[in-house]
């Protein structure tokens, strides 16, 4: 009995925003199954009363002064955008077009 079903792999892919093609989902199922079976050994260790460790080296996080500093110019920020429009990143339409309003399309092409 497998612990991860193909349906779960598909749900995870959706949560991860990853489109898997063809045999990819089944291969992924096998790989996740193997790794999770190995990882399960961690459950045998009793960690009750142990606080989670998020930052290994306990040095104080220094604060910087709250001053405005220069940032990158907009052209530099946009230079790698696959699609841009003037000073903006271009995305597909998110809000459906309503009747009678002729909004500019963000580009589902």
């Amino acid at each position, binding site marked *: 009995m497998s612990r991860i079903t193909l349906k779960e*792999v598909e749900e*995870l*892919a*959706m*949560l*991860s*925003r*990853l*489109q*898997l*093609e063809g045999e*990819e989902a089944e*291969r*992924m199922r096998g*790989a*996740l199954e*193997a*790794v*999770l079976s*190995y*990882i399960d*050994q*961690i*459950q045998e*260790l009793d*960690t009750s009363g*142990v*606080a*989670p*460790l*998020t*930052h*290994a*080296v306990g*040095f104080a*996080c*220094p604060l*910087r002064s709250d001053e405005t500093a220069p940032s*990158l110019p907009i052209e*530099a*920020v946009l*230079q*790698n*955008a*696959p*699609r841009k429009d003037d000073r903006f*990143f*271009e*995305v*597909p*339409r*998110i809000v459906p077009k309503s009747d009678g309003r002729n909004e500019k399309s963000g580009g*589902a*092409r």
Partner: protein
Amino acid sequence: MSAQVESLVAEGQVEAIAAAVKGGKVRARELVECYLDRIAKHDGTLGCYLHVDADGARRRSDSVDAAVASGATVGPLAGVPIGIKDIFCTEGVETTCASKILKGFVPPYESTVTARLAQAGAVSLGKINMDEFAMGSSNENSAFGPVRNPWDTTRVPGGSSGGSAAAVAAGLCATSLGTDTGGSIRQPAALCGVTGIKATYGRVSRWGVIAFASSLDHPGPFGRTIRDAALMLQSMAGHDDNDATSIAAPVGNYAAACAGGVKGLRVGVPEEYFATGLEPEIEAAVRAAIDTIRAAGAEVVPVSLPHTRYAVAAYYLISTAEAASNLARYDGIRYGHRATNIGSLEELYARSRGEGFGSEPKRRIMLGTYVLRSGYYDAYYGKAQRVRRKITEDFAAAFSKCDVIATPTSPISAFKVGEKISDPLALYLADVYTVGPSLAGLPALSQPCGFSKAGLPIGWQLIAPPLGEETLLRVGGAYEAATEWHKRLPVSFFGKEVV
């Protein structure tokens, strides 16, 4: 080409190169031309470079030469030709992290570490191949082809900084930059017969380093000798306002530490690191190295790291959770690959990422999503963080009995290209000796300590307490002074030049 340039390149020593350039005995430009020739001749076989920045290297070396000629002050790495793992953002130079999703990405800014090295006079020759998003330990996960081991080109160089290790071993740069999340500097250093250092977490800035697992990512250097790696680290380390986890403490004198000797130091040996699965030749070489360091004046004491067996599981839970979060930024909108002919925003995300990421990043994103999922968080991610504390406490307890811990770096020597690629779990398990110090954020290095009968390099790992870089270098320096392993070179890339 002058004999002096050829000899400097064959020896690849940072101080000798910088002294010759500063003294006007060779021009930085001549060194660059020599390395570019070597890359043209050998890199077709090895695949170390993703992008040779010949014009940029010539321009940078010319400006070092101009500074020397004008009598201006030049840095400690003046004219030293280096290779940069393609995970460091380099302004105006394509940076891909060996992923199709970042093909064509040209960063608008420079990472702190590469900026500091340039300030110190180092001359970048270009960007170096790696496992995609630093995920892997064989360099076979690069979207642009594998790197091969200079000692046997049918074998892997290790990973994820395999290109950086192989390029130093084959003399395709004098020193190089890598990153280490679960062993990605130390393991390829061991498999390629060079020295690699990961400093204390926060000692070297992560700003401008493409993120894999933020609480574990450590930039660090590779060198032919421990002193070369120490000199690189000296210019890289130190506080950076742009990295909130950067440590403010002063930086030690790393080159001097290499000559500090081991008198009075206690070297701890954890038996948990000599367990089943360790190749007998590696065990013998590491135990012999421990004897050598004892003969050099160190005291050897047994220590115990009882939670070692849970380290790989904890590492893969934490690192995949962080990776799933960090890699969420690749959405096809601001930079990187964008799918075409899409209908909705959701489809744009899923198709851009599905087309852009290779199989290893996909596996780790999926695993990270799984362990962070509502209902599973406490059993996996929360559990792993608790185990991380236990592992860190193991090291703290061991360091009450010793100053440095000595272990093998990798349980296996370089394996054949293709041999393990179909079994991701088997490769994860080979990280068993490097992930502990990663989880605990401890400084650690790998240096050559022998060769197998098949002629493959073997490395040992030294681990110190937080900010114990100088202690680490004292032990590594004393070991190197007592041995000749670091002087061996892969003959096919040096021929008669071998020194």
